[in-house]
């Protein structure tokens, strides 16, 4: 309670330095290191000055350390959401709060890092699911989500059909924009740890629509955009003088594609059908670009090819319906089969911020459908960290940044919740809007309205 109050509001900033200089020892814990040390059945982990300084079965508690008794609970690395709109979108159905799409005027150049609001209440909600880091990725349609099909909402339906580009005018605005990485640290005024970490590209059905109607058009337009970016990179001064041929994309968008064609920044490709996945693998090889696959509902069919290409995938393990003609072969063990084939699999919760905290349950679902437990744990920690180049987090090893979660039980289980969350060694406040509402109404009504 006191901790909660201390970390609330303006105090959090003032305490940042003091807290990160603190030494914390979490004792009596089952420690899932998600590293070479594996599972430590009962041990101690020490966090000093924001780093993990000791972890093991026989670690002694440093003198002066604040001790947190995990009471036999489980300690894991903080979870990393591999693709989300957290902080860039607040309420799916309220357009004014949605900043995770490029809109009509931009494509690859859109930079979601500028959209992120560190004060968004949904960040604390995600943290309550053990999430301490996330890749924030733009979406083609303007983002949001969470609307139900039975809403009869013509407006939202139209938005899904609405493309980032003006289809048919030769403008290959297939690209959704540039992704960013964030850490879910309360009180930080800037939670973006790295911007421009990938360019998102929707192919398959969504890409076909954006390209004016077909997959064949989409791939041709992507190749054309890469060619334009290469020409632009070769001779910027000609472009400035207006001495080049017309490019399909604006200068802003071409700039964003340069690190992609140089192989420095990955393309995050959203694709679902097996044949589309194979087309993308081929495209990546031909164009010599690095890719990450997201969606990949039929990935299991092309698992060997994906593994051979060394391409990581981001999977929603719940996606088992033939809900479109590009997901006819969806199945619950997609993640397990891909992982078994040697593919690096990251498991996502719902892309949408408000269900992000269910990421851990999706990892549990993967276990229920054949993925080894340790692999499932890695799929929400070490693997997304590796995919996104977050080398300082994702495992519990000495020297790593102390993004650590203490759970009251198995972190992948329905009846478990986090009892303490650390970001950069700093214990995070447990209060958030939903819990305040809960506590207001969980107590008996008094003579005065609850607003008092």
């Amino acid at each position: 309670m006191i901790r909660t109050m201390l970390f609330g509001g303006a105090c959090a900033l003032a305490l940042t330095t003091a807290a990160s200089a603190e030494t914390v020892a979490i004792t009596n814990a089952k420690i899932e290191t998600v590293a070479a040390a594996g599972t430590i059945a009962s041990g101690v982990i020490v966090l000093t000055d924001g780093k993990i300084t000791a972890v093991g079965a026989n670690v002694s508690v440093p003198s002066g350390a604040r001790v947190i008794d995990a009471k036999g609970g489980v300690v894991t690395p903080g979870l990393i959401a591999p693709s989300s709109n957290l902080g860039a979108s607040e309420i799916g159905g309220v357009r004014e709060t949605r900043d995770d799409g490029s809109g009509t005027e931009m494509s690859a150049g859109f930079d979601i890092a500028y959209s992120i609001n560190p004060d968004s209440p949904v960040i604390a909600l995600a943290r309550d699911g053990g999430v301490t880091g996330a890749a924030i990725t733009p979406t083609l349609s303007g983002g949001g989500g969470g609307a139900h099909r039975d809403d009869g909402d013509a407006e939202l339906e139209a938005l899904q059909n609405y493309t980032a580009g003006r289809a048919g005018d030769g403008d290959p605005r297939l690209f959704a924009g540039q992704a960013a990485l964030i850490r879910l640290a309360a009180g930080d005024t800037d939670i973006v740890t790295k911007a421009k970490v990938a360019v998102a590209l929707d192919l398959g059905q969504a890409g076909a629509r954006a390209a004016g109607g077909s997959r064949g058009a989409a791939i041709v337009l992507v190749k054309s955009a890469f060619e334009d970016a290469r020409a632009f990179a070769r001779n910027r001064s000609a472009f400035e003088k207006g001495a080049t041929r017309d490019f399909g994309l604006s200068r802003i968008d071409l700039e964003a594609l340069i690190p992609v064609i140089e192989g420095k920044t990955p393309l995050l490709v959203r694709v679902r059908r097996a044949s589309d996945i194979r087309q993308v693998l081929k495209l990546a090889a031909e164009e010599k670009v690095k890719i990450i696959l997201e969606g990949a509902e039929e990935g299991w069919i092309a698992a060997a090819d994906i593994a051979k290409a060394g391409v990581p995938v981001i999977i929603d393990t719940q996606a088992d319906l033939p809900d479109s003609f590009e997901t006819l072969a969806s199945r619950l063990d997609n993640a397990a089969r891909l992982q078994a084939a040697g593919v690096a699999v990251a498991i996502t919760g719902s892309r949408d911020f408000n269900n992000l905290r269910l990421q851990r349950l999706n990892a549990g679902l993967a276990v229920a459908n054949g993925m080894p437990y340790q692999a499932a744990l890695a799929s929400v920690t070490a693997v997304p960290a590796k995919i996104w180049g977050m080398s300082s987090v994702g495992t519990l090893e000495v020297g790593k940044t102390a993004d650590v979660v203490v759970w009251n039980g198995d972190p992948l289980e329905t009846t478990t919740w986090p009892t303490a969350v650390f970001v950069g060694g700093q214990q995070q406040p447990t209060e958030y809007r939903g819990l305040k509402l809960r506590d207001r109404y969980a107590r008996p009504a008094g003579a005065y309205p609850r607003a008092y």
Partner: protein
Amino acid sequence: MLTGLAFAGASSAYAQAAKPAAKPAEKVVTKPLPAGLDPSAGAAPFASTYKPLPGRATAIVGATVLTATGQQIENGVVFFSGGKIVSVGGAGTAVPADVAVIDGKGKWVTPGVIDAHSHLGVYSSPGVQARSDGNEVTDPNTAQVWAEHSVWPHDPGFNRARAGGVTTLQILPGSANLFGGRSVTLKNVPSHTMQGMKFPGAPYGVKMACGENPKRVYGGRSRAPSTAMGNVAGYRAAWINAADYKRKWDDYRAKVEKGEKADAPKRDLQLDTLMGVLNGEILVQNHCYRGDEMAVMIDIGKEFGYRTTMFHHAVEAYKVGDLLAKEDVCFATWASWQGFKMESLDGIDANAAIAYKAGACTVIHSDDPIMTQRLNQEAALAMAAGNRIGMNINRAEAIAWITANPAKALGIGDKTGSLVAGKAADVVLWSSDPFSVYAKAEKVFIDGGLAYDRNDPQYQPKSDFELGQPGEGAFHQ
């Protein structure tokens, strides 16, 4: 117009009869109305042709049993025969010698899961425009449409839901309209017709929708309703028409009964549905997120003499749990979906638990072809959110949120929803504690017939659509 004329005719007949000097009125024998013109005469249209799957007398022994009547029985016995539950009890429960015995050691048994809010069949997979049959978005009041006429029984989603233990579903029209139309309750068995799934004897519901959806859909077309107050005016106008229509039919029947001359009102499908509510035959299933709007909807019911059966998507039930308890209105909610639109902004994980502790009839529903496959886990999240604040809700209680309580809210609580002798043998055998993320439905019985078996491909039905597709039967392992 015609209705009005018919009524005027009836009035003049009455005036004639009332003349003081006239002879006593001649007895009139009114001919029965032709089929289709009398809303309550003759066989119900689109009647159920449901036939239970073949079954045999079966005893599941040694499992942990959640009866959905508040009991958790360790090392229990569930015995069913002839499609009905015969006995449920501890290890000593007698079982006849010649029945099939399933070893349930280490496993759990619950009643079949009931999803009180589904759009399977009306928003089918694959979700293409040609099968977008859930919302008749052409008028704020479409009480005349029946969801059953949109149901595509080959939706692969039914198979996925069954593999998640779902044995009964209420299929609703969408929420674009103030009155979306009639719901239908289905037994989750494969069938090539809707009638073959229709739950025998289940009452209809009418889908009503509060809040943002109707006013956004119609306000966007510059017609009423465009505001919350416009919504309420729309409900009230509809109930006034329904009450008037009911009065005309009641008058007509009273006259026929007395042998007086009577002209029948013209049948109106829209008003039929609403009259059914006023007659207590059709249940009100009301999509309503906000607590304050639920309070208004309850008052509309009082104004026109009907009761709301259940509020759906009631993410703010926790604010009005005492009211829901007092008025005996069930509420259905998700545990974990919230914040995706303005009217769901105040949704909290502990919603169900808080309203449950206030005494309200609690239901966890899906509204979603993915979540319906794991309603057991959604109930677990709702339970855990309560237990996180020390409510000590146990599995024996929480299982009712996805079984006995939705059965009650669908008006089939006397037929299914709990493991009680005499009820339908809708039974799920789970691989482990059904409140665990690792639990899977191993065997699903519907009316005593084995409808799904995770370990036997013979009992893993594929819909017509799935045959020959890349994903044929892909959800099985």
